[in-house]
């Protein structure tokens, strides 16, 4: 048994943390939130140069990582800094799909930071259901709608799920393809997404089916849990600092037992969250993958809500202001539960898998 990160992963973690500390201040991030594009190409290129995108891919695919713990290390740091650049959808989901499909040209460009991608799977009315795919693939053309597609407006290519008869498959669509309409809008927790309408849009089949899709979403769950963990660590650290410095009634508010005990509870739950992410990252590729990921997503949903709400409450009014770091971090934490299945969705999955 060994719970230490490998030397390579620790270096990746250190480098990424140092880079984000230097380049991703609250002020800079808040400017990105307010920007038209909703992301900062310079940051994206910076992350690519550091090898952060490459760390999400196997060596065979031109990367130098790609395992559960590589993904967890990267996304925990992105979460800690509240990064809104869409690496989860644009690099991990779309990129790994293209790597599986052997589209090495696009993967190389992605790892080099030269291409923007989006992953368009969920549909209006489908909630988090993975097999809810009504977009139809007929004769190499796609027709249908996709919901809340991250980064859709800025993407050069979209990986799109569609149904050809009974078979769900993944397809590649270019941004200038005929019959593709994207209406994009800002997101509450930063970044942009779009409603995607395909109307007889030419698409290239990637030769990937429903199982591949499920595997990709599993990786996304690992990443999303790790990102939420990083954000929770920031929320707890900010709260801890605040309780020790903010004075009311003549003493630091952390000396009031009512708050001190709640802080202790947050620290206990944060350890639960750390372990849940380790479970998720460690069980990728094993026969425990499905149940473990469901369990971790449930726990992260529960603890995330507790941490976000308690951190705001214990801060008081200051945490309600847009410009304070915690406001954005708390939104990232809560919105993580709205991606790839919320706590209720994964609770059902866990029950079903445990009963099987």
């Amino acid at each position, binding site marked *: 048994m060994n719970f230490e990160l490998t030397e390579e992963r620790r270096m990746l973690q250190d480098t990424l943390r140092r880079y984000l500390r230097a380049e991703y201040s609250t002020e800079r991030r808040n400017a990105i939130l307010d920007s038209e594009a909703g992301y900062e190409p310079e940051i994206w290129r910076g992350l690519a140069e550091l090898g952060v995108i490459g760390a999400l891919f196997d060596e065979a695919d031109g990367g130098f990582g790609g395992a559960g713990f590589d993904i967890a290390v990267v996304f925990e740091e992105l979460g800690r800094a509240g990064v809104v650049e869409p690496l989860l959808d644009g690099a991990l989901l779309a990129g790994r799909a293209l790597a599986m499909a052997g589209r090495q040209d696009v993967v190389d460009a992605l790892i080099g930071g030269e291409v923007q991608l989006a992953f368009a799977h969920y549909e209006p009315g489908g909630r988090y259901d993975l097999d809810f795919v009504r977009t139809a693939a007929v004769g190499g053309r796609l027709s249908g709608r996709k919901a809340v597609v991250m980064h859709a407006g800025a993407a050069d290519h979209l990986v799109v799920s569609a149904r050809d008869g009974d078979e769900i498959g993944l397809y590649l669509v270019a941004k200038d393809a005929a019959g593709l309409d994207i209406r994009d809008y800002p997101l509450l927790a930063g970044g942009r997404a779009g409603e995607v309408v395909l109307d007889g849009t030419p698409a290239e089949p990637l030769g990937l089916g429903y199982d591949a899709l499920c595997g990709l979403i599993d990786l996304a769950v690992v990443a999303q849990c790790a990102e939420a963990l990083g954000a929770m660590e920031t929320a707890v650290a900010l709260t801890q600092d605040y309780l020790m410095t903010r004075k009311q009634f003549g003493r630091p508010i952390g000396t009031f037992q009512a*708050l001190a005990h709640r802080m202790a509870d947050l620290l206990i739950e944060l350890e639960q969250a750390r372990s849940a992410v380790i479970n998720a990252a460690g069980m990728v590729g094993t026969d425990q993958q499905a149940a473990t990921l469901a369990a971790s997503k449930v726990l992260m949903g529960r603890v995330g809500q507790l941490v976000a709400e308690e951190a705001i*409450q214990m801060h008081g009014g200051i945490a309600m202001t847009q410009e304070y770091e915690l406001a954005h971090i*708390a939104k990232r934490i*809560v919105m993580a539960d709205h991606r790839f299945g919320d706590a*209720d*969705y994964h609770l059902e999955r866990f029950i079903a898998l445990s009963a099987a």
Partner: protein
Amino acid sequence: MDLSYSAEEDAFRADVRAFLEAELPTDLAEKVRLGRDLTKAEMEGWHATLNARGWLAPNWPKAFGGTEWNAVQRHIFDEEAAAAHAPRVVPFGLSMLGPVLQKFGNEAQQNHWLPRILDGTDWWCQGYSEPGAGSDLASLKTRAVRDGDHYVVNGQKTWTTLGQHANMIFCLVRTDADAKQQEGISFLLIDMDTPGVEVRPIILLDGSHEVNEVWFTDVRVPVENLVGEENKGWTYAKYLLTHERTGLGGVGFSQAGLEAVKRIARAETHNGKPLIENTHFAARIAHIEIELRAMATTNLRAISKAAAGEAPGLEASMLKVKGSVIRQEINDLARRAVGPYAMPFASEGVAGANDTVPDPHDAGPVAAQYFNNRKLSIFGGSNEIQRGIIAKVAMGGGR
């Protein structure tokens, strides 16, 4: 024990409902239902409609132009107004300053200021909180120094709700720096057009602009704007904070909110079935509804006591805590119900954003409201302060 309303109370409810049906504009109600920001003109318009009916000041005596409704009538009105999605009456002049002037103001102040609250000449805001003071209100630092016929005010107030619309602010200021914390405070009325008053917006985490900082630099305030006696402001402030505490549980808002959640959950599907039939989600709704039913009765018990003229006990603090938590849980359910569509951000600040941001459930910005309503357990004496009050009364502060 009788849990039913009297025939008179039922008739009153019917009157209120008929009034709302006739006078509440549908587009205004729709904005309220969707949690959109109302313009100053919309809020003033609703005040004028209520004033024309003589219903703008439910807790004022008739002598001052109020309705003199008892607590049950006020509750019925609040419940019907919330169900109809009527705008909230802006409380600063009507519920807060009005009763203080009626009890502690002199005749000249009453004659001058009270009619102006009713007819909308003045929009008041509240200058209590200060940076660093928070729930420890008495530690406020804004100074007022007497200079002839004026006070000269210097300092800063914060969390000033709707201060951007106000032309008047009632303030707690320190007039005796040497007295014990709560004894050197005075209650001052300040015209916000006076040189040296500056209002700066605070943008909240949901992107909304509802609160402000108000800065005072050598602001000269005529001494006739002092309410009551110098250095007795804390008494008036406490009266203001404890007065008019029915409706604190927000039962009407919770009931309306829960209906909205059910409506979304009937339309939303999961595994091909309506979300409202999903065991986990249905249980979440049920747990909150069960709490709300009990709290509605706690609320009525407190109202009934107040209507009988009994002194308020700890109900206000208890209803504040329980009511805020229930409302927040309903906001939480609403954001869960819409699933991935909780993520889009319909900012009032972004021109045209509401036209392009998808809202398939016609639910309004429920996730933004979830974050915005975290304030319910923070402002007006945080839930921690309320629990402290309850514990202190129950156990004598441990002494």
